[in-house]
């Protein structure tokens, strides 16, 4: 047998080497230096696809002009983190599917299989009437962030998964709440920076209601999404009795799901592996992301 081992074919030798490398926990291609991942700047420059729908209208001149923006803390999961999230979504998804028949799909990967960054929102979508307002907002947010945040911080999560819905009520999101300590300190400061910048830049206050509805206490990172089948209730409260019944039912479902999830805490090691360092925030501006770094103690 030993003699046979000495006279392996080329393919067998290669296989043995591969196995040995795997056993040592080293990839075959580890001998050659890995390439850097696609730089954040590229991801930010082409963050949003061109909106073709706006050219499909009968009269392009009648399209409502407006500028929207969105502030968030971005997490770009590593390969390992993606595997952790996959595993988490898969485990929890199985339970939820059996309970309510919803199919949760992870958000860190696109429908076409490309990795996607995740985020912790710092507010709802902000809309501005003019581009000048948006520019002023961006500038002020940079100043505010610089002043209020003078060092990077680590984002951690609560061990309980939460279910959130969206404004259109056509999807449910499986999310990890940001840990209380981070929420009450760093996220709160960032949230204040965003609010103050908004107050400075926006002349009209048409979205004040939606702004008030959102608070830093709800800070979370959605990791999976499930689309709801119609009928769903668009408005917060229905006018007819049937709508009211549907609304109550909808609320109850979410509460039930959250209670279900509360009984199944996420493993501490998984939470630790999902922690990430935050050294700035991002702001969407005209289909790109603007990177706003924190200030520095040294300066």
């Amino acid at each position, binding site marked *: 047998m030993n003699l046979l081992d000495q006279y392996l074919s080329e393919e067998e030798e290669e296989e043995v080497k591969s196995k040995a490398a795997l056993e040592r926990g080293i990839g075959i*291609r580890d001998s*050659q*230096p*890995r*390439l*850097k*991942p*696609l*730089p954040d*700047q*590229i*991801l930010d*420059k*082409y*963050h*949003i*696809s*061109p909106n*073709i*729908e706006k*050219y*499909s209208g*009968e009269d*392009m001149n009648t399209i409502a002009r407006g500028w929207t923006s969105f502030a968030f803390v971005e997490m770009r999961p590593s*390969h390992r983190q993606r595997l952790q999230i996959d595993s988490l979504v898969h485990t929890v998804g199985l339970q939820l599917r059996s309970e309510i028949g919803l199919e949760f799909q992870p958000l860190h990967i*696109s*429908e*076409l*299989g*490309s*990795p996607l960054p995740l985020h912790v929102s710092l507010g709802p979508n902000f809309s501005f009437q003019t581009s000048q307002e948006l520019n002023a907002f961006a500038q002020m947010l940079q100043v505010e962030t610089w002043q209020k945040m003078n060092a990077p911080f680590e984002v951690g999560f609560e061990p309980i998964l939460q279910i959130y819905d969206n404004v259109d009520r056509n999807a449910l999101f499986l999310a990890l709440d940001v840990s209380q300590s981070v929420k009450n300190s760093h996220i709160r400061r960032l949230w204040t920076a965003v609010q103050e910048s908004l107050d400075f830049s926006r002349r009209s206050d048409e979205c004040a209601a939606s702004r008030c509805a959102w608070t830093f206490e709800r800070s979370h990172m959605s990791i999976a999404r499930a689309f709801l089948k119609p009928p769903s209730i668009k408005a917060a409260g229905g006018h007819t009795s049937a709508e009211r019944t549907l609304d109550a039912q909808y609320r109850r479902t979410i509460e039930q799901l959250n209670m279900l999830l509360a009984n199944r805490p996420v493993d501490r090691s998984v939470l630790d592996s999902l922690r990430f360092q935050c050294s700035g925030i991002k702001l969407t501006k005209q*289909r790109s992301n603007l990177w706003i770094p924190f200030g520095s103690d040294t300066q």
Partner: protein
Amino acid sequence: MKPGRLSPSVMYSSIAQYVSGKEELAFEYELQYNGDNVEVWKRYIDYHKSSGNHSALSWVYERCCYQFPDSKEMWTEYLQWRLTLLEGVNPVVYAEEFDKCTRLFEKALYLCHREVHLWEMYLQHCLVQKNLSLIRKVLDHSLRCAALESHLRLWSPVIAFIESLLFEKEAEIDYDDELDLIIQQSFPNHQDPGKAEPVLPDIWASRLLGRYMEIAEDQEHVLFLLSLTKDYPTIVKIFGDHIVAQNAFKPTNHSLFYFYKGYLEALEKTGSQRQYLKAMEVCLDNFPEQRSHLVITLSKYYLKNKEFAQARSVLQECLSSTMTSEAFGEIYDFLVKILELYVSNCIQEAQDATDPDKRSALDPVITYNIGLLEYLMEAHSSLMNDLKLRQNINNVATWLERVSLYASSSEKLDVYTEAILKIDPALVSQSGDLGKLWCGLAQLYSDSNEVDSAKETLDRGTRVPFKFMQDLEMIWLKWAEFELEQSGLADAITILETALTIPSSPDLLIERYHSGEGNIPAKAIIFTSPQLWSLYLDLLEASSNIEKVTGAYEQLIVLKLATPLQFLNYVKFLQAQERWEDSFRVYERAVSTFPPETTLDLWSFYLNDSLVSNRQVETIRDLFESSLRLAREGVDCSSFFIQYSEFEQKQGFFKRAVDILARGCSEVADESSNLKLWGLCLERCKTLLGLESSRPLYEKCIRSVPNSKAMSFILEFAKMEEVIPDIARARTVFKFGAQLVHPDANRGLWDSWNDFELKHGDKESYKEMLRTKRQLMDTMKTSTEEISKQKGNIEFVSSKHNGKGAGQGTSSLELPQSTDNPEEISLDI
């Protein structure tokens, strides 16, 4: 005694010398009584002029001038005469004569000091002698004496003289900078025993020019001359005052840069470094097109000041900011040259040095400069690429070229990243290049097994607002191929389905994209990409999902994107599913979709498939009839006539088979196809319907085909009549054919006729044949046929109206003169 008057002793000795004849004595006596009469003096002068005695004439002139001391005319005449005597005379050899003349001028101008013309003559006299101090003295004196408005007249000859002097000197100066010498000078302890002699400044000229500058109208010329004097302090002062300090100086004959260059040169020689650098800065700002030249000048300045590092530094800095390849070439060449010279000088110095400390001090200098030299040599392509990018940062081809300059993947990645971040997709002018760049980056990740990054790249690539569809198409194709390789068919199909998602108003989007002049991103029309559809259909067919394949083909047809080939593929796909009737319906849609010339092949496949599948006879007839409409559209569908005829023949309808071919002969316009059809038609007619049935077809054929092509049919026709046998008709056919072409060009017919007559004719008919031939030889003197057949010529035919014309009324068949061109001109030749 008045100043200048001749003394009595001189006077009397001269009388003895110059008054010897009676005439002279008579003039002298007359002057004794009438000495104030200028006419007497003039006659006396004229007398001496005619005698040719210059000394005597001079004596009389001088006496006359003293007699009329303030007569400028007399002085002028006298001095002009004196100057003519000095014309062409060497002022050095005959200095005494020139001095005499000078003294005379002094005398004259003492008496007539306001006479400008006399001053001009005097200056001219001085200039001829090139006596610089005298010139300056006389000029000063003249300027003091003459009125201000005459000053320019006085300056003018002097400036012309200065100009000639400076040009002469300029031609002698060798301006070639010996770079090697400059480099040697740049060494701190350099001592050059053989240093070239400096160019001496022309202070005399510069001072005069400086003064002239105050009144000169053409200041540009004065400044130009001043720059030639090399009197640098004066140049610095005057150029500083008139050019640099005042921005109003606008030269016309020389460039403004020329003067600034002169100013810099003057500052280099005399000014402080601060002054020089300030002036250089002004030049760099004012003359960006001269940047390379100025930087080289600055570099030389530093070299001359023993500041080699600074000289090298300015060149390196400029090399990375030049905007033209010409400037880049100049700077690059100069930098390489000075580095080479410097290194070789350093090596030489190190070899010559006896002190080991000095030698070791030179080592790092040599190493650094050799390293830089090597870098410049190796990085030339890269530096050129930098230049191209400075010229147009959105030129994607240059970025792609840059990627190819680097060997390692990480370096390539850096270039890709930089390119994507710097390129503005809206300003890219070449279609396909930007897509290639993104695909290149994805491929780089793919080659490094970074699958996630490759997908991420492709995903981001699809979000770019490309101007051209080819770019986006390229990325989607790449992604589909990548998924096909990595994950398999299903994922690749999903990618393409996403790419080809049809928007809500496809036609509107297409129209807006094409009228939007690049303002609407290509994503709007990506669903129209033929390449994506093609790959999508291929993958779907490979997946064997019949429903999806059918749906995709239908969608393609609805969007009016299907090509003839895709229609055929669809047909073949349906036929493979044994859905023959569906496939025929697709054929119907295909032939109604495309223009006639495109549908020929589609019809061909359609007819063949219909024949193969044994459809009903009437259906096939209808199809043939539909396909034959192409002939009316000018499409050569002769093969369909033949196929149709064969089909009818198989059905047992022989007459119909021949009629279809005859119809083809009249409908198909293409000459070669038409002849082929006639051949086939006559052949089939003879075979299927009998020889005699072919007579009307032969007649029709000979009437319709061109004369040049009709002969073979005529010979066949005659042969057929001979076989029947109808000898008279055969002879008539020969006779008819003979009249179409000149006998010399129709040997085939005449030989056949000859054989025919020998076989079937008699003496009389043979003679008649020969007579006809002779007659035709005489009447058809020129064979116009060949000429008329040439391109662009009008085809000539025998007149139909000529009763005596060949063939007229001779044929019992009453075959008309053949012509295939109704527009042909009839001529009586």
